[in-house]
């Protein structure tokens, strides 16, 4: 079983972003790294200048580098950018919107967790057009994951295994709205929350995380205890989504459990130390509300 580092979903300072990937290249035991802006096109220019260097460094370290597309492509400028990305034949692209798949048909590509693949028929259709990797929607239960993986044995099927889980995307920017701004004049206020902005209920229950136009869980998905279940479901890779914690340590812990060098229960405790304050959840994979933690 392989490990994939998903794209940074939050608005990190460009130099922090670059340094993060340099360290991943040097130290993280992951086979694949997805880079690029997936959430908001307005953030792209900031780290664009670092992107070639980062990709080169990761490739030199033996990682497969995949370029993720935007999840919501609404503006004409965004549509053109994504078309250009998809038509770059020297890059492997992960489509996060069907519009990008139009341009990728006929050559090998990946599909990210923002494209709706809920069953084996949809997976088979996309595989027939060249999809070689698919990271499935996070809300799918293990039974669905297994049926999909069985239906497309030629595809590397991946699930979202660590990080705050993306739950929704909108045309509206909630960071801007909270700061009494609009998306067009947002002043990039989301950069103040590199791990997302915590949302509590009026009864102070931890609930969601706002990241610009994206809404994520406040619980942190952690499937380290479900690795055997996922392996038997035919999963080929686990996706680790970058948060503000030591992602190299996170990757090492997952790697040790996959390789049978550490017990899952012990790894859970170690993960909690690496990401203090995180409340872990794994409900979706067990067909429960996503916020729940099953079997802990």
């Amino acid at each position, binding site marked *: 079983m392989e490990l994939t580092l998903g794209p940074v979903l939050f608005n990190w300072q460009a130099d922090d972003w670059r340094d993060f990937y340099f360290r991943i290249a040097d130290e993280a035991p992951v086979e694949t790294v997805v880079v690029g802006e997936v959430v908001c096109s307005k953030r792209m220019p900031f780290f664009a200048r670092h992107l070639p260097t980062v990709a080169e460094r990761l490739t030199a370290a033996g990682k497969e580098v995949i370029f993720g597309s935007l999840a919501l492509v*609404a503006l004409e400028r965004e549509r053109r950018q994504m078309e250009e990305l998809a038509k770059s034949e020297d890059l492997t692209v992960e489509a996060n919107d069907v519009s990008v798949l139009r341009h990728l048909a006929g050559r090998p590509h990946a599909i990210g967790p923002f494209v*709706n693949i809920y069953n084996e*028929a949809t997976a088979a259709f996309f595989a027939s057009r060249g999809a070689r990797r698919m990271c499935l929607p996070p809300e799918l239960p293990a039974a669905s994951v297994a049926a999909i993986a069985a239906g497309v044995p030629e595809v590397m099927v991946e699930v979202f295994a660590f990080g705050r889980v993306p739950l929704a995307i*909108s045309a*509206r920017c909630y960071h801007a*709205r909270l700061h009494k701004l609009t998306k067009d004049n947002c002043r990039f206020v989301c950069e103040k929350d590199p791990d997302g902005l915590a949302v509590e209920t009026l009864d102070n229950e931890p609930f969601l995380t706002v990241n610009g136009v994206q809404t994520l869980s406040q619980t942190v998905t952690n499937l380290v205890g479900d690795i055997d279940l996922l392996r038997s479901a035919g999963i080929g890779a686990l996706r680790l989504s970058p948060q503000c914690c030591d992602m190299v340590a996170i990757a090492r812990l997952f790697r040790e459990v996959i390789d049978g060098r550490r017990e899952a229960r012990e790894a859970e405790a170690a993960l909690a130390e690496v990401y203090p304050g995180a409340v872990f959840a794994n409900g979706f994979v067990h067909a429960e509300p996503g916020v729940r933690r099953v079997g802990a």
Partner: protein
Amino acid sequence: MELICPAGTPAALRAAVDAGADAVYCGFRDETNARNFPGLNFSRAEMAEGIAYAHARGAKVLVAINTFPRAGQLGLWQGAVDDAVAAGADALILADVGLIAYAAARHPAQRLHVSVQAAAANPDAIAFYVEAFGVKRVVLPRVLSVPEIAAITRATACETEVFVFGGLCVMAEGRCSLSSHATGQSPNMHGVCSPASHVSYRDDGNTLVSRLGDFTINKFAKGEPAAYPTLCKGRFRTGIGAGYIFEEPVSLDAVEMLPGLKKAGVTALKIEGRQRGRAYIASVVASFRAALAALEAGRPITGAGLTTMTEGQTTTVGAYRKTWR
């Protein structure tokens, strides 16, 4: 522009047709449609009767099979497609790529529409469905401004349909797991959002607390109207501020946008509300019929006076105006 109206029951279908709907959309009584609520929707026999009733009066019936089929159990959804075709549906409204592929291959003569749940928000996404499956119409997600709708319609080889009234998704439709995060029940998999089975209310003396699953969604002072606890329309707290951080409990009313939507080249206008009763259907359809008549005659469109029909009793034009973002 065609007026497309919801029907959750055979009585609502008849009310919509009688009030002047050009087409009615409805679904089977199971998880295959995105309004899978108790007591709603159509048996196979009711669907055939409803289609006959509509056809006899010059109206069309569009059958929504717009949840995402459960892996390993595609038969339920494929059977719904076959049954809708056999019943004489004028079009199928589908969201799942695998199911659209099935319908296009199995029933090549059947007219197919792309559901709003597919979130086809730009010309390339729409072209994907047109080129791969020959779809004839796309229902646009509620994330676009009117100028963007015009640009998409110009650039697109199929018809476009937009929502003009009723419940308003704040998130891109078909790409939202908020409900399943809190309740385990999702629009994509189960055809429900913030389901009533998971809603509870608590009276704290001077405050009414509405909850969904294990979470407080809102609190209302005495006398304040208590909106249904739809997850994205609750009051929450952050380090920056508290309140309706996503959206207030508002509904969409785009009647004032009709001239712009006509100019944009939109083919069809859709009213949300398959969960609503006959009175709602008859009143909303009649009012939009009148607005469209005024538009055709070049008369000014007056507010439809439908605010009391909406769920939060306040309305918005949503993303149709760019500043909403």
